[in-house]
């Protein structure tokens, strides 16, 4: 589906005419990311991050397939082949550093993408399905990233695998058999390493599949925009190409500057030195922490310290998973008819002074050792986190008096919709 004024694809030459009849792939591209996709004209740079996430997914698949050409998933040699990649393989060091930091950047852009969605309520009707698929992608990303971190078979790899699979041991009665089944043994070893490698190779392609569904679902209502007012007329939109291909291209250039600054100058800044020590099942590192992108959820996991009916460990696991699963209900928890946080004074306050500081505290505590004051801070932050989504958001959406919305996107941009209608001071009719 698209707006009636969307530009129509016309095959330019014999080859594209032939293709258009047999396999209309150029038409699909034209309508998806070409001039045939009308996009609100007022998108800010926050709308770059979907394309950036797509770019980093492709980067991870390309560098990952290359690393798999030189890596061996065997506990005897996995660490050695990782060093072989770093020292012997032509450009291997660059492939591995790009892959390791690419994972971090994938999470950075996806977190910004999610926060864009939260602030502008992108999850609201008619875009619930896009949001739900996005949460699925995020869960798949977490699983993929976790298993990928195990592959170098360093100390953090090994103990990370042990701790995370140990979470399943918290389940009453069946927990321990499940953990043993997941690992294919009593501790991480060859069996676990092999299956993690197999799944780490598979899941990115599953992610790519869900991304296609995510974009498909997006193209039915069309992109949201910073006002949250739906597109009304042609003057509200611009063709994706060249306007947003150019804007996304610029955003990509900026993102790559940061990315390569890290790859070339601080390649291990986001990693842990302990992972350059080969896995040793008999010696645990002094301070086990997951990769930075799991810190907020790791903080929630450790915030539960009291046995209450169920053991504390199980509460932690439930809390950590619910922290993400509750996002699935967001479209129905936040009932406000107004989407954009710009027109919701009360929501805005809770977003900037409630949710954002809470996430910052969780992030900070997740990377810190499990001692006071970090434990108490994560407990307070965890409580607010769930309060925000499950209580504050539904109540705010009931009692809040939104600020007046602009009549249209054009009016928000130009001050008056009449100008657009009369064709004054507007973008060219394309």
């Amino acid at each position, binding site marked *: 589906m698209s707006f009636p004024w969307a530009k129509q694809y016309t095959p330019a030459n014999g080859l594209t005419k032939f293709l258009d009849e047999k396999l209309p792939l150029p038409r699909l591209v034209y309508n998806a990311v070409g*001039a045939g996709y009308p996009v609100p004209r007022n998108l800010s740079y926050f709308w770059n991050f979907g394309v950036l996430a797509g770019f980093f997914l492709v980067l991870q698949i390309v560098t990952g397939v*290359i690393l798999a050409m030189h890596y061996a998933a065997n506990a005897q040699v996995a660490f050695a082949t990782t060093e072989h990649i770093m*020292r*012997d*393989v*032509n*450009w291997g060091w660059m*492939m591995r550093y790009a892959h390791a930091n690419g994972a971090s950047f994938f999470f950075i852009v996806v977190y910004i993408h999610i926060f864009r969605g939260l602030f502008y309520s992108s999850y609201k009707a008619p875009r619930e399905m896009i949001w739900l698929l996005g949460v699925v992608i995020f869960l798949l990303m977490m699983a993929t990233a976790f298993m990928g971190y195990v592959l170098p078979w360093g100390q953090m790899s090994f103990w990370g695998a042990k701790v995370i699979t140990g979470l399943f041991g918290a389940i009453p009665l069946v927990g321990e058999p499940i953990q043993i089944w997941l690992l294919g043994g009593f501790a991480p070893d060859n069996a676990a390493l092999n299956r993690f490698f197999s799944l780490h190779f598979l899941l990115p392609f599953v992610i790519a599949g869900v991304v296609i569904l995510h974009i498909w679902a997006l193209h039915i209502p069309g992109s949201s925009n910073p006002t949250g007012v739906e597109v009304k007329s042609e003057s509200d939109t611009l063709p994706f190409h*060249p*306007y947003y291909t150019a804007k996304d291209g610029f955003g990509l250039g900026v993102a790559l500057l940061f990315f390569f600054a890290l790859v070339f100058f601080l390649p291990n800044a986001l990693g842990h030195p302990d992972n350059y020590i080969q896995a040793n099942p008999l010696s645990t590192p002094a301070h086990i922490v997951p990769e930075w992108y799991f810190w907020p959820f790791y903080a929630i996991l450790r915030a539960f310290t009291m046995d209450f009916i169920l053991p504390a460990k199980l509460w932690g696991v439930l809390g950590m998973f619910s922290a993400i699963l509750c996002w699935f209900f967001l479209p129905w928890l936040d009932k406000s008819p107004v989407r954009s946080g710009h027109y919701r004074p009360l929501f805005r306050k809770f977003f900037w002074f409630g949710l954002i500081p809470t996430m910052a505290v969780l992030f900070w505590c997740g990377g810190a050792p499990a001692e006071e004051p970090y434990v108490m801070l994560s407990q307070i932050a965890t409580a607010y986190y769930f309060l925000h989504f499950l209580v504050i958001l539904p109540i705010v959406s009931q009692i809040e008096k939104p600020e007046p919305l602009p009549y249209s996107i054009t009016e928000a941009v130009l001050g008056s919709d009449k100008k657009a209608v009369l064709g004054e001071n507007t973008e060219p009719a394309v």
Partner: protein
Amino acid sequence: MADTAATANPDSVAENEDGYRRRDFINIAAVSAAGVGGAAVLLPLISQMAPSKDVLAESTTEVDVSAIEPGQAIKAVFRKQPLFVRRLTPQEIAAADAVDPSSLRDPQTLEERTKEGHTDMLVTMGVCTHLGCVPLGAAEGEVRGEFGGYFCPCHGSHYDTAARIRKGPAPSNLLVPEYEFTSDTTILVG
């Protein structure tokens, strides 16, 4: 499509006398920069598949040839492939020299295939030039073919005492790798 947008924009449509628009310059500059950048990215993506440094480090092999008696041959490994080193008997040398090189499929004399002063030491790859099988004849008791050199059992190529192709489908003589005598009893291959 970029052009349509540009043409509709009154600022960028302005052509100068030569018929060029300012937008053309930025388009060409952007596409060129992206093209050069893309090509530069291809280099590591392609180069990573080439032999890595540990493989290249194994690319020379030292072989001790002192224990080979005339008429005997040994198999060594050079770049993960078999290497035949054979000390020829005077009869074998005579048999090789008796052949008119111009009558051969791959004309070469024994002198051209050995090092000066060591014409009795024949160093070749043990890889048939047809489809890469390992010919017989280097180990004790193996069939040496109709010409007393090597015989490839896969498709029946016969090599003579100078390891030259004499009969069968192989297109050329067994390859003589680059090597040198580092002493009278040692060769360095590669």
